[in-house]
């Protein structure tokens, strides 16, 4: 099953615009690596569809997402809550990508960490979305690993 970038962009837009009323604007950042501290959240899809979704949010973006989700200003948001918010974003994007497959698949729990360097990719990247969320940058990666057609 081929999941194209337009479909992933639609899912991303739906998550931010429909539920959080945060604007989205997609752009092409090329291969430019992110710098500075970021909150990185990943989730694994396994079964009929196999893949990993990664959301990479610079600190300012992650903070803004958390403030929107908690409907409060930054001074009241803890580091744990910022990670929780970005984890929920990858959970929603991952769940919707999983739902595109007819096969039986499972969704893992999100894994969230703070990173300062871009990890070396050990698995092939299928799609990458660069998006401005309320004017702040965010990256979403989709690594499509395999598809077990027998499970469909």
């Amino acid at each position, binding site marked *: 099953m081929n999941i194209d970038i337009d479909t992933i962009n639609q899912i991303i837009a739906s998550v931010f615009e*429909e*539920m*959080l009323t945060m604007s989205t604007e997609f752009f092409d950042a090329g291969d430019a690596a992110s710098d500075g501290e970021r909150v990185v959240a990943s989730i694994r899809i396994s079964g009929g569809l196999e893949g990993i979704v990664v959301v990479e949010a610079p600190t300012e973006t992650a903070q803004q997402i958390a403030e929107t989700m908690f*409907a409060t200003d930054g001074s009241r948001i803890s580091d744990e809550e910022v990670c929780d*918010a970005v984890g929920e974003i990858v*959970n929603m994007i991952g*769940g919707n990508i*999983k739902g595109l497959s007819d096969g039986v698949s499972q969704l893992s*729990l999100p894994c969230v960490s703070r990173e300062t360097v871009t990890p070396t990719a050990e698995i092939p990247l299928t799609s990458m979305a660069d998006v401005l969320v309320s004017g702040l940058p965010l990256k979403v990666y989709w690594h499509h690993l395999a598809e077990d057609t027998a499970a469909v």
Partner: protein
Amino acid sequence: MKVLIVDDSKAMRMIVKRTLAQTDLGRCDVVEAENGADGLAKVQAEKPGMVLCDWNMPEMNGIEFLMKLRATGSQVKFGFITSESGQQVRDQAMDAGAQFIITKPFNVESLNAAILPCLA
């Protein structure tokens, strides 16, 4: 009506609570739980009229929670609010006794449409 919101994400519990207040249910008593095991205890202690529950959670997930809840004889109105969107998940939820399942992202309209039949 008292509503129990079960989700391991504090951010999502906050969003559900805020969205719920904008539905026809209006402001209501809300109790929160972080997973199914916590949810089971809260149902016993708080006697909610409705449970809004995530699917994927550590310790005890949503479907295990619902099955254990129904095994106790509880007929509390139960709806899933989850990123899970496949037909298999939907069937499993309904077979276990859920009244509805809403896929995230959701909004006031979709939540309202789902809970309205439970308010009758």
